[in-house]
């Protein structure tokens, strides 16, 4: 199993991704050893490290054969990639949250199909959520510190990802609804999936052993 180029996400699921790759017999430890490089080669395998939301872009274009990325990223953009395996790690929830004091107002506004202002890093996910319920929202896309928006009146509520809920609690936000849950996925370029099927399915099978039980 060599010659593959693997896209690894920085950030929250970085460590779990490395563990899963190592568990499948890939020499991913090389990435831990020297921190800041973007490309690593070891034993015929090439690793590239990128922002989580960019991992499926590298994979979709064939610049990487396989990659690891959270389901939340895949749901936000319809990437044309093959989703091979649920690694079970990096579990987090996509939630609708509002400041505790005004939570009831927001809940009522949504119930009455009033237009609520929602700040989020996931505009498509938020839009689909409100459309599915037949409710209306004005969506404000931000790129960081979403929790800030309702505190200063930019938005009434937020759609965001949370793992432990700590940041929400620290900012006096409470969860109004859970939109979906997300775990890390092994994804693959659709050309590579066919042209290099043996190596890639071997990798996917080896990763199954390392994945956490579903539940």
């Amino acid at each position: 199993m060599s010659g593959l180029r693997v896209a690894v996400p920085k950030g929250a699921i970085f460590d779990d991704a490395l563990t899963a790759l190592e568990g499948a017999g890939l020499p991913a430890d090389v990435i831990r050893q020297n921190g800041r490089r973007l490309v690593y080669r070891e034993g015929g395998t090439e690793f590239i490290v990128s922002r989580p939301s960019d991992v499926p872009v590298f994979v979709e274009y064939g610049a990487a054969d396989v990659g690891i990325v959270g389901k939340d990223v895949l749901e936000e953009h319809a990437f044309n990639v093959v989703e091979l395996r649920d690694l079970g790690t990096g579990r987090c929830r996509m939630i609708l949250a509002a400041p505790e004091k005004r939570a009831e107002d927001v809940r009522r506004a949504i119930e009455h199909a009033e237009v609520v202002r929602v700040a989020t890093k996931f505009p498509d996910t938020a839009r689909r959520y409100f459309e599915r319920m037949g409710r209306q929202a004005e969506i404000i896309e931000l790129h960081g510190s979403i929790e800030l928006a309702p505190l200063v009146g930019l938005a009434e509520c937020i759609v965001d990802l949370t793992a432990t809920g700590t940041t929400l609690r620290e900012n006096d936000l409470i969860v109004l609804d859970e939109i979906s849950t997300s775990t890390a996925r092994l994804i693959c370029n659709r050309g590579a999936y066919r042209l290099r099927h043996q190596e890639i399915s071997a990798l996917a099978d080896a990763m199954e052993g390392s994945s956490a039980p579903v539940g």
Partner: protein
Amino acid sequence: MDRETPRKFATTPGTRDVLPPESTRLLDVQSRIRERFRLFGFREVLTPALEYSEVIEEHGLRDASYKLFDQDNQMLLLRPEMTTPIARVVAQRLAGSPGPHKLSYVLPAYRRASVGRGQSAELYQAGVEVVGSASPREDAATIALLVDVLQSLGLKAPSDFAVVLGQSAFYSGYLRHVVPEAATPVAAALAAKDLVAVDALANGLPADAAAGVRGIPRLVGPATEGSVLEEAARFVVGEEARAALENLREILRHLEAHGALGAVILDLGLTGRHDYYTGAVYEAYASGLGFTIANGGRYDNLLKRFGNEMPATGFAIYLERLLSVLPEEGPRPLLVLVGGDVGGVETAADLRENGVPLLHLSEDLPPQAAAEYARSIDAPWISYPATGGVKLATADPPGEFAFMSPESVARMVLP
């Protein structure tokens, strides 16, 4: 302050001007593909870029189309692909003549591109359609033609490219027979290429049904090895899946006779990007490129809409993507002949008579300027008229001039 170029002088998002040498390569590839299509008896058609919006039924394609209204307030669209227009042509214009109709096209299609995803709004395509035959032998013949075209352009199978072949009726037939109530969600999960969702749905099914739901989409491997078909045979239940597998076997038997089997990878999870595919379906991939360079398949129900029920099969090649994986070629022979008044005109005629591609500059440029001009148009040679021939030099790097007769220029310049 610099004046900004008005935005409307740029090309619209997703479109571009194609300049030499790329345009030359594109046109060359088009003419070589035409040659192969003709060699296999396909006749080329032209259809209008504008169609009534009703012609295209598929949601994905309709959404991706540019739309406009005509003077009667009818909605028109720029054709997002060529298969449906050709189906319309055959149903409306050729229904009286005996089939099969073997038609080809080399035309651009138009799709709203998502900016930043590297997609073109104007896609140059070349393809064929065989309308009026349900035989798997025609599927095999069109796949073999696709392989022939790619090979004739210098790509080698399986190192440079492969055609991935599936049979969309095999999995759907299995699902409808074994787990009819789960068939729709499972097929939708597979169409989204989400094997995790397929597995999750399989977990809720009886064990023997789940094995096929999980297993069939994972049957992938070279067509030259029998293992994929053997594995697939284990999952045959019901008439539909049995017929689909038999159909696939017949295609493979003929692909072998065409000598194209080595370029084919089987994938029983491949169901095709368009809803109109009903049987054999295939996509061509080049190594290192994430996108398909061609796709095709059988669409037996598409013509029904145009009032003429006829089975059909065909493929489209995406020419820009194909160009990006073709081996680089050196500059073409081209000679810049500089000045020389009427003597220069006569020399130019003489050289062209000898088959030398030649650009005559009527102004008398000095050698340095002539060489610079030649380099700007990728011409490897510059020359000046001389008695009984020309003085010839290379343009890049600028070389020494040497006298040559028209015949020896031809030997020197032509490959």
